[in-house]
């Protein structure tokens, strides 16, 4: 027997979790009368827009605020509210004088504002603000974690704010989802229903309140992240945000004007976004649109489309098994390379259009048929040139089960040194299992490696008949889509491309209108073509709950999970995996064509590819060949236009002259790269750079205080989607200057060009969950709510140096590893003061400044960040990376991948952002018997030697007892196989002795249990 040579790593595969069938169902309540289901009312046309200004200490107490009350689109009240306890001497007078001078209503206290707030809730009004969770927590009188109840799952893990000490008054629950979205809802207080309604048991909808966070709306309708200043600029509102420096000082008219203008600017932004949404012509109430995906779902709903959901957990698991996100890789690492940056037009809608996935979206069901022989033949005979035909792509609605033997596939694993599983296109060998991939991935594998994967099974999918009663929609009165006749994916992007051609002839408001329309079409196209199909809503479960984990081809197993997943309304993982597979095939074809033109590539990022010039090729030749690579994709344009779908990006051309300007790329790791030109002296002129890995740090210095000897950034980097903060630009400039100098190989990049970089590095985050707020328990102990660090209050995370092992202390003999410091500090406007308050959130001990990493130290390793997914991706290595050859040692199952990676990074390994399902114990159940049998045949000592287990462990196993071991189960199986092969004539061949300590992958104890201790699969049936 010959074992494949490879690097043993655990595979990480998506699985599907469901409630365990057969659980006892609660007894249904006997209802004497028929329950009347009452439809909910739309929010009333009452709007309360408000904003608070706070103190500058960690508690960030509300000092003053402004509100406007609008009724039926008319401003009927505008006032200032204040907390009398926070007044400086003279503030009360200033407030009264200000109200008189500005002719607004008489100021009211914070408590009066709370009364108004509760009245607006009762009247069904709406609340408008920017960053509402923060402002709501400032005006609350207390908070607690939301209760974990079966009816409250959606808000589990959030904060519950109270405004009155009465159980008859609703509380506000806030669940943070991501930096741009929080779910905000009122609770239903006791006596929420009238007595008659309670007697009748009417199913009355509760008054949950309507909270319009302008930041969320902006993210949904404009795509991207906005603060008030940037939003006002984008929407060109009448009122703009002002700057002010007087926080924490006695009130002045200037300061009050600033606060008042903030409210007016917020209202103007809300009105502009509302007008924009109303122009779309969608029927979904605006407050229900919380993200870009919400717009897509609203469009489908207006057409009457209900996405068909698969109910068989095994089939869902099959689709998820084959699912991988977009490819993000670096091929030429840490070498400045001349490139042409290309980008696929609307990659996901294009893929959907080519595969004809709209037919599936409108179908009543999905039909599957066995197609193994057909797929084998296709894979054996197909060539890359065949896939220039649009018709061919319709055949890609296929999933294939493959026996991997060195084939190039996306491999999700814990690559060396990584805390999270990442995906890299590598060679995969698995001698024990088969794996599901899309046909597109199989084709990519064949074209990239030249080897046809061994197909075990192929399932082709076809759409069933279309759903009845679907309706056409009219978007902005300009685009009509009939779901029966038109492919919505194609129509949206085709219209967008046609509008682009008009742009050059337009100016002023007409041009703005077209740009807005195009942006709307882009958001709609992207949101309907991918995200919604894979939406899973995650609920934190405390305590953990037992779920059945489904893996295709195996019996489901039970495990305790910390998060449960509920599918979104459009959840269809089959469509999701087909779409990303097609995108990877596009990239693979582009790379193949580049190779045929003797071009390399530096990086790819889902839909973009940087083609690399070989060092000996003239520039004109390079451009010509890059052009041919692009033209190859012209026949695949599904939008009725002659252009190629693989376009050259604007960054390839000079900003002013629009002439081709030689572009260079320096890539460090996935999503960490910079694109630059070179000036007459050969210095880099940065055109685009990623802030990946830098965005979590607070800026050490402002945009107007850049590094003294560095040239200022181009205008294009100061605003817009490519915006880079000055300090990030300076960091990249330092890296690029160093790499272009003759010291690149002899010295490391120095980040001492600005004194602010020698200060401790701070990351700012807010206490978005009760778990994070608990870190401040020591600070909050004994204080009133007003003086505590509150929910959504700002905190600082500091980065501590690794502790040296302690050879003399009490832990020296035990060899215990020195524990890392997890330094946090309460917010303070004065950073030095905040740093002085730093403490370890685990032990509570204070942390001194010299224990903290500076910005320069944090940045020191940034230029050498490894690309662990590939060979030659080590920190100090340069040049081309190579695919690894991964030998699957074992399989770990996960749910939805990291949705809180930022929190995880900031707070250390306290969070696990990925939903973990662990290993399938059924896979290990045969091991116990195998060890006993081997011990019976060969004896205990040979088994111990072969597997690495202690003899005592072998003895325990022979006695029928469980054993806990740190040795990988894969190594144990390998050892047993070795012993078995010694009995046959062909000896096993290795690439060397594999010792347990050399096996990379997850460490941690494994439990070898007798079969009787495994949960029987019949319990799960």
């Amino acid at each position, binding site marked *: 027997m010959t074992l494949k040579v490879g690097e043993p790593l655990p595979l990480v595969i998506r699985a599907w979790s469901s409630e365990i069938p057969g659980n006892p169902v609660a007894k249904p309540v006997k209802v004497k009368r028929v329950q009347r289901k009452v439809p909910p009312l739309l929010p009333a046309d009452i709007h309360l827009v408000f904003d608070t200004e706070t103190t500058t200490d960690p508690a960030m107490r509300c000092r003053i605020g402004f509100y406007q009350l609008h009724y039926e689109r008319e401003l009927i009240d*505008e006032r200032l509210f204040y907390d009398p306890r926070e007044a400086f001497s003279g503030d009360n007078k200033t407030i009264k004088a200000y109200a008189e001078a500005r002719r607004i209503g008489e100021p009211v206290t914070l408590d009066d504002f709370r009364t*108004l707030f509760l009245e607006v809730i009762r*009247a*069904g009004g709406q609340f408008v603000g920017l960053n509402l969770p923060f402002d709501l927590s400032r005006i609350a009188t207390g908070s607690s974690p939301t209760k974990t109840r079966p009816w409250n799952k959606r808000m589990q893990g959030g904060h519950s704010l109270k405004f009155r000490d009465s159980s008859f008054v609703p509380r506000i629950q806030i669940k943070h989802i991501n930096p741009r979205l929080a779910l905000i809802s009122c609770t239903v207080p006791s006596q929420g229903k009238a007595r008659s309604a309670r007697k009748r048991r009417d199913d009355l909808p509760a*008054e949950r309140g309507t909270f319009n966070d302008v930041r969320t709306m902006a993210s949904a309708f404009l795509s991207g992240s906005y603060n008030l200043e940037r939003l006002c600029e984008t929407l060109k509102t009448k009122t703009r945000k002002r700057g002010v420096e007087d926080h924490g000082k006695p009130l002045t008219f200037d300061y009050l004007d600033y606060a008042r203008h903030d409210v007016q600017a917020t209202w103007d932004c809300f009105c502009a976004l509302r007008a924009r949404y109303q122009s779309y012509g969608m029927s979904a109430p605006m407050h229900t649109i919380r993200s870009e995906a919400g717009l897509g779902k609203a469009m489908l709903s207006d057409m009457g489309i209900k996405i068909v959901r698969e109910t068989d957990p095994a089939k869902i698991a099959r689709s998820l098994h084959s699912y991988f996100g977009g490819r993000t890789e670096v091929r030429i690492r840490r070498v400045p390379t001349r490139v042409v940056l290309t980008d696929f037009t609307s990659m996901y809608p294009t893929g959907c259009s080519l595969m004809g996935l709209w037919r599936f979206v409108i179908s009543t069901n999905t039909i599957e048929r066995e197609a193994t022989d057909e797929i084998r033949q296709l894979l054996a005979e197909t060539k890359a040139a065949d896939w220039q035909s649009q018709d061919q792509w319709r055949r890609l609605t296929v999933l294939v089960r493959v026996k991997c033997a060195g084939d190039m596939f996306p491999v999700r694993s814990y690559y060396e040194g990584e805390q999270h599983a990442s995906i890299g296109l590598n060679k995969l060998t698995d001698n024990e299992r088969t794996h599901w991939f899309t046909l597109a991935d199989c084709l990519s594998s064949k074209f990239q490696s030249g080897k046809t994967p061994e197909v075990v099974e192929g399932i082709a999918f076809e759409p069933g008949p279309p759903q009845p009663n679907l309706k056409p929609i009219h978007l902005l009165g300009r685009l009509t889509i009939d779901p029966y006749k038109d492919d919505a994916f194609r129509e949206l992007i085709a219209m967008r491309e046609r509008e682009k051609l008009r742009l050059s002839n337009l100016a002023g408001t007409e041009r703005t209108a077209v740009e807005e329309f195009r942006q709307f079409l882009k958001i709609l196209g992207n949101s309907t073509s991918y995200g919604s199909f894979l939406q899973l809503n995650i609920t934190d479960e405390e305590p953990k709950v037992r779920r059945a984990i489904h893996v295709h081809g195996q019996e489901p197993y039970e495990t305790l999970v910390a998060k449960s997943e509920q599918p979104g309304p459009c959840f269809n993982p089959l469509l999701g995996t087909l779409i990303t597979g097609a995108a990877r095939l596009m990239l693979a074809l582009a790379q193949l064509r580049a190779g045929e033109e003797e071009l390399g590539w530096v990086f790819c990022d889902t839909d973009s590819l940087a083609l690399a010039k070989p060092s000996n090729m003239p520039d004109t030749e390079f451009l010509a060949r890059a052009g041919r690579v692009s033209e190859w994709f012209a026949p695949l344009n599904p939008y009725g236009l002659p252009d190629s779908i693989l376009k050259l990006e604007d960054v390839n051309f000079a900003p002013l002259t629009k002439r081709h300007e030689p572009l260079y790329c320096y890539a460090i790791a996935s999503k960490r790269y910079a694109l630059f030109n070179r000036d007459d002296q050969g210095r880099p002129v940065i055109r685009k750079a990623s802030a990946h890995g830098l965005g979590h740090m607070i800026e050490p210095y402002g945009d107007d205080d850049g590094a003294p000897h560095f040239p200022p950034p181009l205008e294009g980097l100061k605003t817009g989607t490519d915006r880079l903060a000055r300090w990030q630009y300076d960091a990249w400039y330092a890296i690029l200057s160093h790499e272009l100098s003759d010291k690149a190989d002899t010295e490391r990049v120095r980040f001492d060009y600005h004194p602010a970089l020698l200060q401790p590095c701070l990351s700012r985050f807010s206490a978005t969950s009760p778990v994070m707020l608990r870190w401040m328990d020591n600070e909050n102990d004994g204080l009133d709510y007003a003086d505590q660090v509150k929910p959504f209050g700002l905190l600082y995370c500091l980065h501590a140096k690794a502790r040296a092992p302690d050879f003399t202390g009490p832990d020296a003999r035990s060899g215990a590893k020195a524990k890392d410091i997890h330094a946090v500090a309460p917010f303070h406007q004065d950073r030095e003061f905040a740093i002085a308050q730093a403490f370890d959130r685990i032990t509570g001990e204070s942390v001194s400044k010299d224990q903290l990493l500076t910005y320069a130290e944090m940045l020191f390793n940034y230029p050498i960040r490894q690309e662990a997914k590939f060979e030659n991706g080590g920190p100090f290595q340069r040049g081309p990376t190579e695919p690894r050859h991964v030998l699957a040692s074992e399989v770990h199952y996960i749910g939805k991948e990291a949705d809180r990676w930022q929190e995880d990074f900031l707070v250390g390994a306290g969070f696990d952002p990925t939903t973990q399902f662990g290993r399938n114990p059924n896979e290990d159940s045969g091991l116990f018997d195998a060890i006993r049998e081997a011990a019976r045949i060969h004896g205990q000592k040979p088994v111990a030697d072969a597997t690495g287990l202690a003899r005592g462990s072998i003895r325990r196993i022979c006695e029928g007892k469980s054993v806990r071991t740190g040795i990988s189960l894969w190594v144990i199986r390998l050892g047993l196989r070795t012993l078995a092969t010694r009995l046959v004539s062909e000896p096993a061949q290795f690439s060397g002795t594999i010792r347990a300590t050399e096996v990379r992958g997850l460490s941690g104890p494994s439990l070898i249990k007798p079969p009787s201790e495994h949960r029987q699969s019949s319990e799960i049936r």
Partner: protein
Amino acid sequence: MDKIDLKRLGRKRERLRTQGTINPFCCACGEHHWAVRYELNHILGHKHDDRVMRLCHSCHDKVSEMQREYPPIPSNVDPVVAKLIAITRGRIINAKLFLEKDEELEALLTGRLQIPQANGDGNDA
């Protein structure tokens, strides 16, 4: 700036929330003030049909009273026949109720009854 009475709007909202509509009205007499208590009347009897119509409480009381004028349907009657009886009774009752209002409307239109003056203090749904 005109003031609004938020407390009143809150009461109104609470009333309308139980109705599930911001424009409740009585199908018999046309009453549409938000503060009026409306109820859902099963047109053909709740045992026989789910369809309802909204009536103000006074019209619903009249309907209930008219229903009491009929004797209960004996239990030994064939269920199909029982349903037909209930349907017929329901239609008779509704017709009587609407006829009352139609007679009033006819009297207003022919002048036999004076049209009441609008007082400006009424519904603001």
